[in-house]
């Protein structure tokens, strides 16, 4: 571990009634990270985030932001933070600008011009005088980001920032995050249930399932693996399986829909195809498969990626 820990989370636990929602998790976020907090619905991402921000009190454990303990030194810990928790909420009867003003008023030393700056950054200057009740989901998401950036935060928490957006909207938000991380030196903590979102914008990732961490590391280590997954459609699945067993660059073979599912070293699929054809195995087609979060989980738990 090098670098400065902007966020330190130690053995957080939280139950709502009898259900353990977060069950002893800990991790560090370093300065400059775009830290992915990946987990399926109900994994406990939002609850963890609420504990990190001092909204929900943990049963156990501690959170430190910029060196300040959120429970003991809330005002200092929260000072450098911008955040969106769940979908961004607004006062629908106030305008976009008035909504931002509500937050600017909580930071007495912030110049009034900062509101215009952040509105401009998210491209909402033209709609700032309209009531937020009239905004589309994408506009609300962008206004939420503007609000999270208002107080010049050094660390920004975003909870599923692309949830409910169309592909274009997702792309815009992701590009904005990458750009901000790069140009303004902001550390991001981003929760998501989308594996490819992590691949696209994060450098680190921690994976949460049922309130427990099941893996963590750099995105390169965990996701940008040297292997890829292809689906082979063939009537001769049995024979193909025989041929592929024992080939060095083939990591695993499993029966799949109408054929086999093969994990192999990246860039060797043409070779694989050639091999099968040379053994007179009919290959109808060979498709690269995008890994779903569920598959990835199965693989993680089988593949021995364990949390230290």
């Amino acid at each position, binding site marked *: 571990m090098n670098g400065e820990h902007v966020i330190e989370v130690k053995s957080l636990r939280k139950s709502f009634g009898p259900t353990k929602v977060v069950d002893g998790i800990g991790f560090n976020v370093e300065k400059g990270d775009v830290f992915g907090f990946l987990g399926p619905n109900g994994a406990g991402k939002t609850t963890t985030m*609420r504990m990190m*921000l*001092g*909204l*929900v*009190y943990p049963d156990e454990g501690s959170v430190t932001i910029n060196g300040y303990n959120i429970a003991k030194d*809330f*005002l*200092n810990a*929260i*000072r450098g*933070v911008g*955040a969106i*928790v*769940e979908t961004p*909420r*607004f*006062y629908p*009867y*106030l305008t976009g600008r*008035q909504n931002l*003003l*509500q*937050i600017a*008023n*909580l*930071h*007495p030393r912030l110049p009034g011009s900062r509101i215009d700056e952040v509105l401009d950054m998210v491209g909402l200057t033209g709609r700032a005088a309209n009531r937020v009740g009239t905004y589309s989901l994408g506009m609300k998401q962008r206004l939420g980001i503007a*609000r999270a950036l208002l*107080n010049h935060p050094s660390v920004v928490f975003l909870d599923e920032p692309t949830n409910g957006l169309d592909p274009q909207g997702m792309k815009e938000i992701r590009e904005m995050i990458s750009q901000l991380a790069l140009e303004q030196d902001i550390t991001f903590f981003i929760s998501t249930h989308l594996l490819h979102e992590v691949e696209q914008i994060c450098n680190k990732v921690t994976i949460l399932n049922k309130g427990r961490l099941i893996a963590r590391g750099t995105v390169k280590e965990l996701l940008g693996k040297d292997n890829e997954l292809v689906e082979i459609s063939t009537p001769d699945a049995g024979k193909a399986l025989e041929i592929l067993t024992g080939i060095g660059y083939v990591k695993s073979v499993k029966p799949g829909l109408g054929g086999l599912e093969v994990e192999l070293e990246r860039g060797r699929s043409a070779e694989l195809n050639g091999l099968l054809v040379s053994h007179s195995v009919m290959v109808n087609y060979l498709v690269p498969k995008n890994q779903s979060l569920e598959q990835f989980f199965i693989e993680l738990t089988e593949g021995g990626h364990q949390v230290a």
Partner: protein
Amino acid sequence: MLNLIKNELIKLTANKKLYVGMFIILGVNLLPLLEMVTGSLGDIPIAGQTFPLYMLSTYLNVVMPIFISVLIADMITDDYVNGTLTLSLIHPVSRGRLLAAKVLALATMITLLLLYSLLLGYVFGSVIFGWGEQFIYQDVVSETNYTFSAATGFVITLGSYAVSIAPLLAFGMVVLLLAFHFNSGGALVGTCIGLVIALSFLGEIAQGLRPVLINHYFALFKYAFLDKNTAQVMVAVLVLGAYSIVPLMLSLRTLKKKDIVY
């Protein structure tokens, strides 16, 4: 702190409900006109200069408690459930200060609404009944007539509206405490209306309980300016003080310990 209060006031005044409420107060001012037409006013001596004081009881017992419940439902219950309370709480503001700002904003709104009602009372009263020669106020319950000069009457009216802030704010603190335990603003308002009705019934059927019922002290202005009963004013101050401070402290504790999950 001033900024926090400003935030609350911006939200309250941008909300349609305030204007609906003000419109209702306007309507309430026309009720005596209806009573005059139907003759149900009897021989109560109403004039423009006494009209606001006559209206005050209606405001205190009915209009303002509902108004206060609606404002608090917006400021606390709905703010929490809509997830907007979270917005302020993830900035360098302590929960205690936020609550204090909300209470002060409420006090401001109560004051402004009473002022609005007072002005409206003078305008409607004078237009409907004429200003009148003398300030004669008849207490409807005891049927006692209180007579003052116009100037004294004006001061008494002003003072009556001013001291009425205290019982209303105390009532507000009770609603505040309730507000943290509801999941919908509408349910809170409904409950508070029920509470006001229940309290007045309770006062009727168990008169011995009256001294501890908050609505008994809505008539603080009468003790202070008409009966001039110092002992009763002292008791009122003590009881209202308890009604203000205890729920406020409990609300503060509730908010400080609360998991903000919306």
